[in-house]
């Protein structure tokens, strides 16, 4: 049986599945239920500084988009950090950590951008016996208007400064949580690294408006006729998060910096994908808010079964394995040629591949052959783009088949070269370093 015990920047947990800082981790009641269900760790809902807590709206805080069967695909929220009293939170954190010593207890913090404010809270958190802290530089709404959260996360210099303070005032490992609401996520990651962070976690939520009420002409969720942008999360954000994780993992400046992955993780497979792209563990929020804590059973079991099947002994055997295979477009092999192949036995003849190709791509799929409805790839037109595969409702019905070296590409009337050749050396590239002779 694969060993999925996790050691993330010295924080141990029985599995790599943590709950992200959010409502599921807002109080002892929820966190204890999560631990009972099997979660390896939690990042406690973000604490603010001492004094009267923030207040949330008293109307709807969530909006959503759905797929078929009303499957929740994206969730948006306008919730703030914890609205519970700091003392209560600290007392509960201490108690829960004492009762569940084998689980990871990380405390998320967001206080104003002053050295004293951070120093003060760090001491308080350290007293709880928590395993580490996560700096919330991500909240896209409500808090950034107060000069916290994303307002800090969007300024690399601030990130570096705050991380430095934290490393100075606490022995606890520091995880810096990054906002995706920025053009190049490597910049804040590099800043956190420069400040001495032990790890980064990402992504926090993405600025969003999920829908507009067309009767009231107001964005949703609507509070007394008005709405505001919220933070987007759930399965819909996973591809964005995957890319950001990969960007940091393969950036020479931050390569090797531990990453805690967040964003749309719902199944063991999502978690495994993030880990392959360099994440040391996985944090989950929307999936448990949709289905409850029990899904962790499937994540643990699914990950183990997959690892067993593939012969991966422990998490180190998978973490980062896909990073060397993430490259820049210019280094992709232009001599790699594929053609779509439609499995006629699996084809249900919906025609979506044809119309996608005919209307919007390369006119490479028939709709009629000998007077019969029949969908078949025309190799002389097919550029191997994969659109047909993606619009086909039947998994595995259309495959992209690589042409072997030496085979004839009927579109270009050229034989496929066995050599690797990319854009940097392509004759059409005005900046080609070596002319193709």
């Amino acid at each position, binding site marked *: 049986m694969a060993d999925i015990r996790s050691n993330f920047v010295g924080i141990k947990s029985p599995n790599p599945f943590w709950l992200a800082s959010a409502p599921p981790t807002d109080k002892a009641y929820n966190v204890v239920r999560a631990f009972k269900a099997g979660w390896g760790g939690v990042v406690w809902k973000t604490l603010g500084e001492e004094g009267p807590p923030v207040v949330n709206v008293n109307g709807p805080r969530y909006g959503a988009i759905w797929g*078929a*069967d009303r*499957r929740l695909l994206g969730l948006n929220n306008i919730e703030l950090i914890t609205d519970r009293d700091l003392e209560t939170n600290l007392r509960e954190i201490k108690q829960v950590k004492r009762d569940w010593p084998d689980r990871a207890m990380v405390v998320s913090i967001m206080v104003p951008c002053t050295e004293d404010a951070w120093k003060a809270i760090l001491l308080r958190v350290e007293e709880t016996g928590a395993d580490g802290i996560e700096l919330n530089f991500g909240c896209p709404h409500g808090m950034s208007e107060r000069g916290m959260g994303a307002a800090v996360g969007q300024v690399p210099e601030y990130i570096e400064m705050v991380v430095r303070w934290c490393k100075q005032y606490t022995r606890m490992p520091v995880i810096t949580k990054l906002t995706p609401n920025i053009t190049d996520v490597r910049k804040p990651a590099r800043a956190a690294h420069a400040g001495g962070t032990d790890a980064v976690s990402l992504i926090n939520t993405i600025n969003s408006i999920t829908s507009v009420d067309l009767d009231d002409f107001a964005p949703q969720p609507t509070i007394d006729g008005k709405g505001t942008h919220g933070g987007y999360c759930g399965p819909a954000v996973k591809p964005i998060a995957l890319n950001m994780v990969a960007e940091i993992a393969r950036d020479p400046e931050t390569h090797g910096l531990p990453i805690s992955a967040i964003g749309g993780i719902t*199944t*063991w*497979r999502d978690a495994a994908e993030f880990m392959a792209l360099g994440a040391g563990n996985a944090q989950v929020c929307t999936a448990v808010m949709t*289905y*409850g804590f*029990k*899904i962790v*059973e*499937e994540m643990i*079991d*699914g990950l183990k*079964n*997959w690892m067993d*099947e593939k012969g991966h002994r422990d998490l180190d055997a998978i973490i980062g394995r896909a990073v060397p295979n993430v490259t820049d477009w210019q280094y992709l092999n232009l001599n790699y040629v594929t053609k779509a192949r439609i499995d006629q036995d*699996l084809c249900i003849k919906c025609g979506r591949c044809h119309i996608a190709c005919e209307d919007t791509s390369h006119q490479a799929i028939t709709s009629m052959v000998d007077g019969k409805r029949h969908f078949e790839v025309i190799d002389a037109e097919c550029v191997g783009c994969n659109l047909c595969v993606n619009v086909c409702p*039947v*998994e*595995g019905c259309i495959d992209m088949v690589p042409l072997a070296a030496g085979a004839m590409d009927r579109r270009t009337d050229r034989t496929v070269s066995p050599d690797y050749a990319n854009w940097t050396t392509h004759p059409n590239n005005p900046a080609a370093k070596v002319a193709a002779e």
Partner: protein
Amino acid sequence: MADGLYKEGIAAERLAPEQYSANFSDLHPPLDRHEALVESDRCYFCYDAPCMQACPTSIDIPMFIRQISTGNPLGSAKTIFDQNILGGMCARVCPTETLCEEVCVREVAEGKPVQIGRLQRYATDTAMERGAQFYERAPDTGRHVAVVGAGPAGLACAHRLAMHGHKVTIYEARPKAGGLNEYGIAAYKAPEGFAQDEVDYVLSIGNIEVQNDQILGRDFSLSDLADRHDAVFLGAGLSGVNALQAEGEDIEGVQNAVDFIAMIRQASDMSKLSVGRRVVVIGGGMTAVDAAVQSKLLGAEQVTICYRRGKDAMNASEFEQDLAASKGVTIRHWLKPARILSGNGKVSGIEMEYTTMRDGRLAGTGETVRIDADQIFKAIGQTFDPIPLNGSGAAVVMEGGRIKVDADGRTSLANVWAGGDCIFGGDDLTVSAVAQGRDAAESIHRALA
């Protein structure tokens, strides 16, 4: 059309050879991977799910379906087998329309439940095809338990006992293990030798010995067994059959439906099986439907089920009744057998009396009707035969003609447990027999600890 169709009397080879294999192929063909993924996506992963509540073995249905949807069919199979080691057979034979699928929230919402049974089959078939084994025996406890009967109850009990490290010997009257899975379930529900494959799969945990042709009451007594073992589990099912109490019951052509069904299950060539041109089945349960449908599938021209009460009182589910109708079986209600008619010493028909409810009781109206028949099947219920139990030792306490047990499956005798069809208060389903066998094993394990 084969010429055998209109042969008078009881005859074989009524159909063309290829019709037999078509008729007896899988009732619900297996889902392929794509179908399973699409179907699994429909599950809402309900909290405290109604389907799971409705399952006598309490399989975590939302979890196994989620595991299918995430591409983890082996994990899914384990979730099923953890609760029900005969999950493969149950996936095929459970009347899901009155269990999990009846209460599926999507049945309530749209009249279209998630196809739980077929998904269960997808997962368990995948595991069995890959030969995936999920259980190991605990270290040997040195205890030895006797199980009487290798049906679903006995097998489930034996497997759970073996998991806990006990040695098990199963004493089985018939030449093959499986109980009604092998000798009773309709052929089109478990084709291609699935029952024996499953027996092998269950027994592969090891330390379970099956002794065939060993009959309690003939080869040994209950007190012998109890003396020679640390505990005994009785899972002998129902071996008796209710009589029609109609004149002429022993005329040639009158048969027990269960024997006919067993014969079909054991046949290697269906075309060699004889069936009447006109068949009447007396009864209203699953056995009646199975006998009627399989008569039709063997080429009987006219098959009529006669049931003495109304449609709602039938034990066969709505689905089973519709299945019978779709195969061309006629179901007639409010008729009870009065007299078997014969000619030349063979059955020629049956006289049925109309019935009605009078003062809350079923009563004949006096009016009768004749139905032509060359073959009549009795399917008015099986009974428990207590004689083998009560040899030299103390008698087992019975209730309603079956063995009385407590919530743990204990009988009135020390160290004797029972489960499955032979106990009082069950619902005569494969899945319930599995649950009772499993739970009795847990109770035995606690008692032996």
